[in-house]
């Protein structure tokens, strides 16, 4: 079994809005293996994007990560920090470092080096007044400077502003930016490196976003809805690109998406989120073919099947709940829409537990066993189960 690169424990992120406290992510537990692709799926408001931002430590007011540990495997950093006596236990555990407990400076230095991120809307994630190449080169440069231990302070800024010839970005970083653009298959990178984001199409910009994330050779790539809003031909290109890069660089990818088709193509394991909680996590084929949580089952059943027009879709009744703390039920948050809900469900919020010993498939449902059994029964018509794996294209 591959070692885990990331172990997330009890991650909880809340937003303190005027309308009340929003529990965007509640007590999340999952692992990300080295070189693994883990998909986090869920509908809008399931907290999947907040999970990604929490991992990157990019939650801004009124949001706050209120609880949890994020253990990141970095023997080198663990060595460095190991000597410090106080609170050692909270910070270092063998090869793992709890990035939630390290100093802000170290935390920040991990962003853009070990962790890279692709944002949902590339049009908004690029600064409109700088060229695409410059922004990618900046990422390269930041990473280089961190390696050299260069810090950049106010004085450096003043020097840069005053002498018009000096630039933050060195020409080597600029060359590297061109290479990166070429790597993500942007045609004519030498010309396009000097273009502004608005001159790029959505798909090209998403590729450039990937290039920017690659600038630092990240260990973990967090891709937040990388295909949403793109045309289907372009989507396919991005999925292929991510697949290639994963093989090539061996990085771990956490892909956040609502598109189950994308998941089935790229993810080794799938985590299903609903109302800020993890409902089910397991190897993708298992989750798709034998969903143990009724919500996963319902989600898969809601998708029109692309390859089999005769399969009926069975919608889940009701609506996605809102996450205001005072409106959330005390029991399972899916209970009011769940076909299998019993009275117990309204009271007990089921923990995420192993479905069976050792097969890495965990589920949070009181009726997991029955669901599984029913699902297995229905698998007897193999077409349906098969088609389900393949199904699904929806985008917003």
């Amino acid at each position, binding site marked *: 079994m591959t070692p885990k690169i990331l172990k997330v424990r009890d991650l909880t992120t809340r937003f303190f809005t005027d309308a009340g406290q929003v529990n965007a992510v509640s007590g999340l537990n999952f692992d990300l293996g080295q070189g693994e692709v883990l998909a986090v799926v869920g*509908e809008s408001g399931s907290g999947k994007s907040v999970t990604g931002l929490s991992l990157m430590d990019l939650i801004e007011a009124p949001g706050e990560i209120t609880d949890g540990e994020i253990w990141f495997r970095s023997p080198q950093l663990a060595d460095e920090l190991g000597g410090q006596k106080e609170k050692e236990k909270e910070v270092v555990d063998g090869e793992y470092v709890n990035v939630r407990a390290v100093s802000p400076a170290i935390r920040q230095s991990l962003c853009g080096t070990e962790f890279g991120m692709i944002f949902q809307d590339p049009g908004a994630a690029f600064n409109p007044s700088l060229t695409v190449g410059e922004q990618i080169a900046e990422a390269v440069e930041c990473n280089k400077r961190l390696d050299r231990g260069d810090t950049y302070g106010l004085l450096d800024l003043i020097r840069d502003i005053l002498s018009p010839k000096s630039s933050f970005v060195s020409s080597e970083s600029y060359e590297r930016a061109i290479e990166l653009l070429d790597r993500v298959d942007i045609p004519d990178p030498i010309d396009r490196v000097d273009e502004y984001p608005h001159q790029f199409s959505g798909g090209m910009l998403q590729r450039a976003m990937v290039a920017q994330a690659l600038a630092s050779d990240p260990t973990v790539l967090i891709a937040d809805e990388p295909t949403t809003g793109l045309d289907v031909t372009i989507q396919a290109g991005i999925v292929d690109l991510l*697949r290639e890069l994963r093989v090539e660089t061996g990085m771990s990818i956490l892909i956040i998406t609502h598109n189950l088709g994308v998941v089935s193509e790229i993810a080794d394991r799938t985590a299903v989120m609903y109302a800020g909680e993890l409902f089910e996590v397991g190897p993708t084929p298992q989750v798709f073919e034998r969903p143990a949580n009724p919500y996963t089952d319902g989600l898969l059943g809601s998708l029109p099947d692309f390859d089999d027009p005769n399969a009926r*879709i069975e919608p889940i009744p009701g609506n996605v709940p809102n996450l205001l703390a005072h409106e959330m039920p005390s029991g399972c948050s899916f209970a009011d829409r769940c076909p299998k809900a019993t009275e117990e469900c309204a009271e007990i919020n089921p923990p995420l537990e192993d479905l069976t010993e050792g097969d890495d498939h965990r589920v949070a449902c009181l009726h997991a066993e029955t669901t599984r059994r029913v699902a297995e029964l229905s698998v007897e018509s193999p077409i349906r189960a098969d088609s389900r794996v393949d199904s699904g294209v929806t985008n917003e």
Partner: protein
Amino acid sequence: MSERTSPERQRRNRTAPDTENEDEGEKTRSESVTPLLRIEDLRKHYVDKQGVAEWVLSKDPGRVRAVDGVSFEVDRGETVGIVGESGCGKSTLARTILGLHEPTDGYIEFAGKDVHEQIASDRKRFARRAQIVFQDPSSCLDPRMTLREIVREPLDIHQVGAKAHRNEKVTELVERVGLSTDQLERYAHEFSGGQRQRIGIARALALDPELIVLDEPTSALDVSVQAQILNLLSELQEEFNLTYLFISHDLSVIRYLCDRVVVMYLGQVAETGPVDAVFERPAHPYTKILLESVPGARNRIGEEAIKSDIPSPRNPPRGCRFHTRCPVVLPPSKYGMEFEQDAWQGIFEYKLRLRSGRLGRERATELAELTDNDGNEETTAKEAVRDSCSIPRVLSDSTAEELLDQSLSALVDGDSEMALKIMNADFESPCEQERPAVVDIDIDTDHRAACLRASDEEGEQ
């Protein structure tokens, strides 16, 4: 120009449902034969606003060819899907059909009569027969109106029955689309996305229309809610004998809901036919690529994904609009069919790059540097260009090889104009010159496509 071969095409085996509308005096006897909606060579171009300055400078206004020569028919009771990527003109098409835009050219016939004449003579009357459901749940309802007001608005405009009758009808509709009548006095923003879409459907149904245009009604919804709406739509269709024109970019939704499909590319129809036929046996390379791109689909190929962008409808490519992205562009007729498709595709790529002005001498040298080969500089540069476009080092056809080499030499010498000139003169694909006519793939099912390859095959048969 596409020439429709026979207007009296054999119709599909679909019985037109009996639409009972006593007050529709213009109902013709031939209704069972005429389609509900017939669109012929429709064009809608947007012309850029021409201000005083443009007028003084006599600058040519830009022109977006959103819809550029589209023809198809919709029979009563069927669901026709219009599918295509962003910028293919599908929404403009829908809105032009409903008379929201004045068409630039072409003809739209609704129940045997010209739509724009109908609108000119009586806007309201036409409104009762054709309605629309929109994409964006956050903008499709007036936030300052309650559910009751929204659904009653069309009834008020048309003064259908007495007040009490209208309220009754509102209750009926609201219940029918699956909303609770307790919520009648709630404002639009108090509903969730799926509920708002239901309200939009209720509003469209209020006037008992024959045709409903569904403009991406589920693309902003979550999958679990999308499924509810899709099922509601098919129930309603059966119950009210509705005809749907369903616009979407989501191929699986199209396949789930539609009987026939129109695949659009850059304002033109690439392929049209029964959903099953088009999805199982696509005849147009674009349709094929579209189907193969669907993530998770069974026949998804992966490696073949197109890397280039969709061209702008402001300045669409000449000839077949898809030729800039097509993997199977026809080779020039003088080299015949024996020209290997791979090699030819490489040459074509080289030509497209030259034309876009992105391949000059400097680029060639840069490419050469990247390969860091020793030896003759010129040869290296040429080979680098060949490699970057995946053209084999030597072409099988010697004349072609000679000409290509000439062009490459010109390029390396810095005369990219000359290089392009050679390519234009000697490597002209029919796909660049001719707009492909719409040809029948299968007459019985009305499966048609607009591709020169398809026409060639038809010609051979």
